[in-house]
């Protein structure tokens, strides 16, 4: 790529621009998920019958997914530590491990969806299911996007380039993780 503009290298606040913009992107994502979750919670309070629908989600698979995602976050932290010591190859290894975690998450999510669709619960089967598919689907898209970025960053990091990006994608991955931490109890446990 061409050279970096000066504006990108300046840091008046003391926070590197890359980290700063990651935080702002996460902030805007929080508003999107926050709005959706708040809407869901408000509706859930007004519809006691949704509890019955929520009984059909598989708590065990959900819990397993929580575990998978938390583990992948751990490897994202390890990748950041490796990048901090300028060990690009190691960072890349951990990033790919994180992406693998994301893949497992999506596979399990896919199994869940398949089961639910087989049981006849689809997007249009009522309020709870509409929210369920929209929330998990939107989250799944974020996981997918995160995985792609993880792999791109890993490819660079393996050649010891752009190591500052390891931290940014790590932050983003934690955010995706935390969104799941909110989704899991709301969709699987609160019945």
């Amino acid at each position, binding site marked *: 790529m061409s*050279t970096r503009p000066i504006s990108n290298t300046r840091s008046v606040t003391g926070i590197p621009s890359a980290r700063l913009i990651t935080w*702002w992107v996460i902030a805007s994502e929080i508003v999107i998920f926050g709005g959706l979750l708040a809407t869901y919670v408000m509706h859930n309070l007004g519809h006691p019958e949704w509890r019955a629908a929520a009984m059909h989600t598989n708590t065990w698979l959900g819990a397993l997914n929580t575990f998978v995602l938390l583990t992948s976050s751990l490897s994202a932290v390890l990748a950041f530590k490796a990048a901090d010591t300028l060990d690009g190859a190691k960072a890349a290894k951990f990033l790919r491990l994180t992406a693998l975690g994301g893949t497992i998450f999506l596979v399990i999510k896919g199994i869940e969806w398949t089961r639910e669709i087989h049981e006849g619960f689809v997007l249009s089967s009522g309020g709870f299911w509409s929210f369920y598919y929209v929330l998990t689907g939107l989250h799944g898209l974020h996981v997918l996007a995160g995985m792609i970025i993880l792999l791109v960053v890993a490819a660079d990091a393996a050649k010891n380039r752009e190591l500052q990006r390891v931290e940014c994608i790590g932050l983003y991955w934690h955010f995706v993780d935390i969104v799941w931490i909110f989704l899991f109890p709301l969709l699987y446990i609160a019945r």
Partner: protein
Amino acid sequence: MSTQVPHAEQGIFQKYFWSTDHKIIAMQYLFTGMAMGLIGGYLAYVFRMQLAFPGHSVPGFGIVTPGEYNTVVTMHGSIMIFWVAMPVLIAAFGNFLIPLMIGCDDMAFPRINRLSYQIFLLSAVVLVASFLVKGGAFGGAWTSYPPLSASGAYNLTPLGASLWLVAVALEFVAFLLGGVNFIVTAMNSRAPGMTMYDIPMVVWMIVLASIMFMASVGPLIAGAVMLLFDQTLKTGFYDPARGGDPLLWQHLFWFFGHPEVYVVLLPAIGIVAELLTVFARKKLFGYKTILYTTWATVIISFLVWAHHQFVAGIDPRMANIFSVTTLLVSVPITEMVFLYIATLYGGSIRFHTPMLWAVAFVAEFMIGGVTGIFLGASGTDIYLHDTYFVIAHFHYTFVPIAIFSVFGGLTYWYPKMFGRMLNDTLGKVHFWGTAIPFNLIFIPLFITGAAGDQRRTYNYALFAEQSRPVLQHLRMFATFGLLVMLLFQLVFLFNFFWSLRHGRRAEANPWMANTLEWTVPSPPPHGNFAKLPTVYRGPYEYGVPGRIDDYWPQDVPN
């Protein structure tokens, strides 16, 4: 890691369509916005002609059927706010001014910037394409209330409704990307020595607008996805028969929609602050106070949204709270306007075209502001809600915002953008030909609104009270005003394109202004500054006692 590397000669496509240079991207936003503005103006012409001569064929359009009328007003509203005011005020001026005014060579993330424009362009293309699909473009008002918008059987523009939502959602994403870039650039990439209070007001305002946009639009993006699913996948988020709630959309929409007004207002008043100080040769009266009042406005504007829904079936007790917060928002805004007026005190005012726009902005915006009180007071809103009084009110805010301040800004920064001066005489002809007819359009509409004319009505013939001849004459008068105003825009277009080639060459600082963009050649070269500047003082040091020059650029050591 250094800039100032001489860039290889790029092809036309590389230079104008694939550039990461903030100035080119600003121009892309500006010209896209202007093109969309022409469409929006044409639509206004169509529905005003229909209202003045109902049932007659409108020259250049044909007979306006009820369905077409809905489409035309819906698209006029959507285009003017989302595809004209937003791109021009925030993106075009933001992209052009922020790096230049804070003294750096580009945005912090130039490629994100390019991506933001490309998504925006895509959204504009989707919107324009929606005119061509079967059933025509969406006709359920720019507020898009479900269940009307949620079902093709109700709105009768099933494809248009979905395309409209897709276009709006894409537009939001584009401005989120652009917005985080603005915020980070202004936070991190300022020239050495530029403290928070040395930032020119317009940069502050664009950044605050971006933060506000970011904080308000999220729920609506989620809401738009839900509405899209209601339209296409038969979910029931907004369908009361299936456990949904039509009011939910109204809350999500107005939680965004009201801050959105301030999102476009803030850059406009930022531009006006620059114009007033430069042409009055005055320091801005109470820089910090203006900043605090802006923050107050930003915060309060998140708490007023339900004043659009007083009679929408919300709990009537809630209306009291929102009535109070709505009148509360008038407090900081009034203070701000007073400070702007006070800035003129003791000045030495030059009435060049940009200054005319700036003063007209303040004068007209005040009318828009005070008429808002009638609508924020819940008692009178029962009667005035969704009448032409509302239309006249918000046009008295939006037209100064999206037209007056934009023309002021364009005439002021034109030499910096294109390296040539606009013709001042033509500029003044255009100014008077816009500002006077503008009042001719909307003052009659206040009266028809107070007489009960309801909005989005293509023909009042079935309403005995509304088809009184006097009201019809007022409508015709408003249409006359619009025609005159539209014609005078030709003067601007001519001036704009003629001056590109034939205008007098502009020196670096033709207006004797202080801010950093005037320290570089006009137009600025790629990379902006030959030597990156250091800032020694605030942006509005005009008429400082003891100096020979009445201005004191920010980058001059003493």
